[in-house]
């Protein structure tokens, strides 16, 4: 399955990219497992926020083909 991964604000700076497409062979992969694939050398920062298809969720969220996953720091709008 194919996942679109997006990074915002300091997460983009940290990753050195804004977006990537990740191919995963097996279903049932969680956000946490996806993170281990895109960032093999650093664990998921504790204060990072996660959205799947633009809804907030957590690292245990299982992914399906076509999902858009986003990693970003606490929001500071308004």
């Amino acid at each position, binding site marked *: 399955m194919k996942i679109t991964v*997006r990074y*915002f*604000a*300091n997460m983009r*700076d940290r990753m050195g990219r804004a977006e990537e497409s990740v191919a995963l062979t097996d279903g049932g992969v969680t956000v946490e497992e996806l993170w281990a694939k895109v960032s093999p050398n650093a664990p998921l920062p504790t204060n990072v*926020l996660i*959205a799947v298809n*633009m809804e*907030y969720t957590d690292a245990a969220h299982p992914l399906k083909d076509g999902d858009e996953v*986003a990693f*970003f*720091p*606490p*929001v*500071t*709008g*308004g």
Partner: protein
Amino acid sequence: MKVIVQEQAFDPYKETSAYEREHVPVGKHGAVVTFVGTMRDFNDGHDVTTMYLEHYPNMTERHIEQVCQEALDKWDVDDALVLHRYGEMTIGDPIVLVAVWSAHRAHAFDACRYIINYLKERAPFWKRESTQAGEQRWVEHNTEDPGVNSQGAKQRSA
């Protein structure tokens, strides 16, 4: 109800007037509360000169709309308008407008406050400030607790 996320600067009071004239029936509401958030020249003790506001297109609109809908479900609100900017802005610029029309003053206040508080908590925007020293930094957290609803006396909720 209308939610707009845009790059260009806006005049919150002209927008409120125009929206009311075009969308809000005359003589029904009785109470209008607006909140305008503007860019300050200081933050966490830094002197700030310009700011860039990044956002997650579509997710911002979706979550602001959700927050507005929650307010409409919770209180007797006739209508609500939210405008939020992204991109480059300078000191004094309006960043966000929340306007709420209601037949009841208390409902207008409560709903407006709810919308701005939860927008600040959930809408995916990130501020990057440029200081006078030429330094750029991501703002780590808003200076006010987004959930704050206190009637507290003089206490900075920093």
